[in-house]
């Protein structure tokens, strides 16, 4: 069973990963976006780090993820803020008020979170967005957290040959081909942080 401390740890690990990879995310965002994905997530996850350390998140996993999601919406801006914010908020809502949740509960909640992201952004796998990492990642969760992280990583890598159909990169048409999607890359970081946390290596 996973308690609030596990989720606090996950959010800290995600913030660490974003800090580590911010420059790379911004580099990926340069040729097909506007070169700020790393800077924006850095701002958001720094705020999440403080928010989950504070007294506000009640002692449940659901409440903690909802606070993290609200924090991202309130600090990131752009498309990443509402999309990542919705992912965590929706996942948190699905977890309800239980003090501890099973891995199976978390799988179901994350699936609902990813569905909410797809609805909000109107995107589907293959559009060259964060869903290209999140959808295979969540599917692989039934095997293990590490399998999910690897599948998300693979999904992010597989965005290279795709033509963007959503977000700012879509304006490039054919010229968006040949670049890895920064949103899928950061989504893979989030699931990588989850795997590290579950394995106790973060």
């Amino acid at each position, binding site marked *: 069973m996973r308690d609030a401390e596990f989720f606090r740890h996950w959010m800290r690990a995600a913030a660490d990963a974003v800090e580590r990879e911010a420059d790379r995310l911004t580099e990926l965002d340069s040729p097909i*976006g506007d070169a700020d994905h790393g800077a924006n997530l850095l701002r958001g996850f720094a705020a999440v780090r403080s928010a989950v350390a504070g007294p506000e998140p009640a002692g449940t996993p659901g409440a903690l993820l909802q606070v993290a999601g609200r924090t991202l919406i309130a600090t990131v801006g752009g498309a990443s803020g509402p999309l990542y914010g919705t992912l965590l908020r929706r996942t948190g809502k699905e977890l309800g008020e239980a003090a501890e949740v099973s891995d199976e509960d978390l799988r179901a909640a994350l699936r609902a979170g990813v569905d909410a992201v797809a609805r909000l952004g109107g995107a589907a796998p293959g559009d060259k967005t964060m869903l290209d990492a999140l959808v295979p990642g969540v599917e692989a969760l039934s095997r293990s957290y590490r399998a999910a992280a690897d599948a998300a990583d693979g999904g992010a890598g597989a965005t290279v040959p795709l033509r963007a159909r959503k977000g*700012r990169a879509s304006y490039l048409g054919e*010229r968006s081909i040949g670049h890895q999607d920064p949103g899928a890359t950061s989504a893979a970081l989030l699931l990588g942080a989850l795997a590290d946390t579950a394995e106790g290596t973060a």
Partner: protein
Amino acid sequence: MLINSADTVVGDALRGMAAAHPELEVDVARQVVVRRGARDGGRVGLVSGGGSGHEPLHAGFVGPGMLSAACAGAVFTSPVPDQMLHAAGAVDAGQGVLFVVKNYTGDVLNFRMAAELAEEDGLRVETVLVDDDVAVTDSLYTAGRRGTGATLFVEKIAGAAAEEGAPLDRVAALARQVNDVSRSFGVALGSCTTPAKGSPTFDLPDGELELGVGIHGEPGRERHAMMTAREIAEVAVEAVLDDLARTHPAAGRPVLLLVNGMGATPLLELYGFHAEVAAALAARGVPVARALVGNYVTSLDMAGCSVTVCRADDELLRLWDAPVQTAALRWGR
């Protein structure tokens, strides 16, 4: 770059704006600029906003006859729902609020969240999406057309209607009408440099240009060998009129014309370009009723320009001519 740091660039600009324009209420912490006395007079409120780096859009257009409030995001990044909620609350005089939103995924999502929250608080909110950029041809496979220069026309004309006391439905309908009859096309002669990255966003060698760019320093649809101002004007005018003609024939009808600089193109060049644009329109039988030339919807220090036309009728012209008193646009008082 003439900045203190990439982290403080937006806040610093807002502090400077507050110092230069005491007639505005500038909330530097929230990054919201509000027209002083916005709630006096019981008018419909007009709130817009978007990423910073497009100045004077949007805060430069806050004031009598135009916007009631503007929300500034980080550079090229949409503001967040908290800012829009705060702005809506600060300007709502009971007549409701119109959100003017440029069609970018981030702006759309954040304003949509803000509208839902505002309505939960009992505010009436209407939203108009600005999507005038004809360079985005295949909207089925993109996020849809971008909002660029027509934003200025929408904000000016809807703002004038609100100033006259028009109700929310009417202000929103006018805003949608202006967007519906406006088209834009942009050209980049060089990349911009965002403060966060500190180096040019894309590499555009001397002697080449990008046709069909937006306003975020992103590359356009097509790279081309350098062209003269006359050739660029031909391409831009052809593109906007062709597209407009699919829904609204422009020949013989007067247009509002915006010849807009992207931030690093001098007025000497913009006026020369304007001469070519006006000639290209005249050659196609399109009279220019009013023209505006300058840096209004910019992309940081990008070299380049855009052309926006708005097919005007008598009412749109009257509202365009109505007095406006903002930091970046003022006439008629």
